């Protein structure tokens, strides 16, 4: 007769704990590596934003070429938008490391600074590009909000494709509890999410076609 091997229950438990913990640890390493990539991106963006700010401040004192400043601003705007999409990919996948949420807030702040920078450059250089700020619910959107936000994202992506450098597209999470963004939400009386704010004047919460956005961009 084969001896009763009840110890297998214990061995299996030990094996499970080892595998589970190794899995979580490997997952933590993987997510940390992604966060590190985003951190590097953020540092580059911060540097570029500082650069833009320096150019803007220099413009006040010196007679700088507005065209170069605007061109730089537009390129920076495109970059910051692409990076927003990059972070979005990682956010959905990260399950353990909470730092990605912190990085999202960091990028939101950078985008807010970029927005303010953009407004000032537009005013000083009397440029005709348009600022489109897209406020969305980040933390816990309802089913309807989620579908609308996906739709708005795709629609604005199409608008960007059509309008190219005529627009500066800036997505901002409105519920990240960042004071500066909260102030701006209050300033522009944004109470519903998602909301599109065009040139700090026009608020859109319902859109049925691309032309409804484009009519404000002419």
């Amino acid at each position, binding site marked *: 007769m084969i001896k009763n091997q009840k110890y297998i229950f214990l061995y299996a438990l030990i094996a499970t704990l080892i595998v589970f913990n190794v*899995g979580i640890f490997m*997952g933590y390493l993987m997510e940390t590596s992604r966060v590190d990539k985003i951190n590097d991106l953020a540092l580059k963006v911060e540097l570029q934003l500082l650069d833009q700010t320096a150019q803007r401040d220099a413009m006040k004192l010196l007679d700088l070429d507005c065209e170069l400043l605007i061109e730089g601003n537009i390129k920076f705007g495109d970059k910051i938008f692409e990076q927003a999409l990059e972070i979005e990919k990682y956010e959905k*996948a990260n*399950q353990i490391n909470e730092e990605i949420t912190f990085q999202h807030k960091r990028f939101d702040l950078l985008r807010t600074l970029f927005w303010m920078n953009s407004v000032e450059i537009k005013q000083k250089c009397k440029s005709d590009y348009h600022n489109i700020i897209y406020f969305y619910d980040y933390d816990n959107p309802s089913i309807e909000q989620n579908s609308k936000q996906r739709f708005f994202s795709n629609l604005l992506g*199409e608008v960007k494709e059509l309008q190219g450098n005529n627009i500066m597209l800036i997505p901002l999470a409105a519920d990240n509890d960042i004071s500066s963004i909260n102030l701006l939400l209050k300033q522009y009386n944004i109470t519903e999410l998602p909301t599109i704010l065009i040139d700090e004047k026009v608020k859109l919460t319902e859109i049925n076609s691309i032309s409804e956005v484009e009519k404000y961009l002419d």
Partner: protein
Amino acid sequence: MYMFCSIYLLSFNIIAYLNNKKNLFEYPELKKNYSVSFVVPAYNEGETIADTIEHIFNIDYKNITQVIIVNDCSTDNTKEVVEKLKEKYPKLILINNPTNLGNAGRSKNAGLKYATGDVIAFVDADSYPAKDSLKKMLGFFQNEKVGAITCPILVRDGNRFFERIQDIEYRVIAFTRKLLGYTGAIYVTPGPLALYRKEAIQETSGFDGDNLTEDIEITWHLIKLGWEREMSLSTYVSTTVPQKFGEWYKQRRRWTIGGLQCMSKYKKEIFKRGMLGLFVLPFFIIQFFLGVLGLGVLFYVSITNLITNYLFTTYSINADVPLLTMNQLFITPSFLDYLGIIIFSISIIFTLIALSMMKRTMMKKENLFNIFFFAIIYLMTYPFITIIAIYKYFKKENKWR
């Protein structure tokens, strides 16, 4: 929680297999000449019972004292078929229940009253024990603590796709049940062929006539009384399986309700010392819980996604905006996705090992498609059956047929 339980079960099976792979097919040499009484409950089994009886009498064992057929008021020709075979087999006994008892357990108890052997063997009327079954099973009774013995149940000549999927299932179950046997954790001695020491079955007072899975119930009763259970992997019994989804569904629903009945009956044993309280009951409860929870989560996520996608599609079509962009095609897997893939891959490897261990030359070679279908689609139906069974159980719709 799912991950943890999956990893635990997989680890258990792998460790048990690695520990015992050299002796999986061993069985004790039979030294005692046990007398064996067979009991076969039958209701409308006219098509299959002759073959069952032939197979029993064909078993290579000299001390089969009785083969008792319990006819539960069949409306087909079961009685006539058995009466005719009595001429050929003098040891064949036919008991006709005066009224329909409606349950295999009650019929088995009726047959048990007439059984005189040291060992009582129960066989379903659509099952066919192998010729060497008794020789390779009875030896386990030489350990006085053993009260019941089981063996693999294999699908008989399954050539249809649905039968082949069930064949995979039965072979994997047989293999894992043997592994459970090494820890004394066998929790069922299935109806197609189960041997019981007479003393053990008498101590249980027989089968629970109200239980839809009397084979599970009696095993749990034996565990509670301290009887050990063994499994002989070196022989088998073949059985006919449902060929249509409707029949299969009713069978599995019955098994699930029976499981609920057993859990309810033995609920006071939970966490008490012994295999029943520390493994069998928690195992069943966790299985049911995870099945129901998983289905609940799946429904919630599916419905949420469905509504979100419907609204999104409606908005997009109205606005003539693309439904899919390049960016949305990129999937970034989370660590849980990777872990899930690894666990699934190891499960498939283990399934392949189980199937190769339980090879049958009669069966056509199964292909990977069948195995993946079994692992992904077939197994996913169980949570749905669990929900329906729970509903039927609480509505007290516990009918055999």
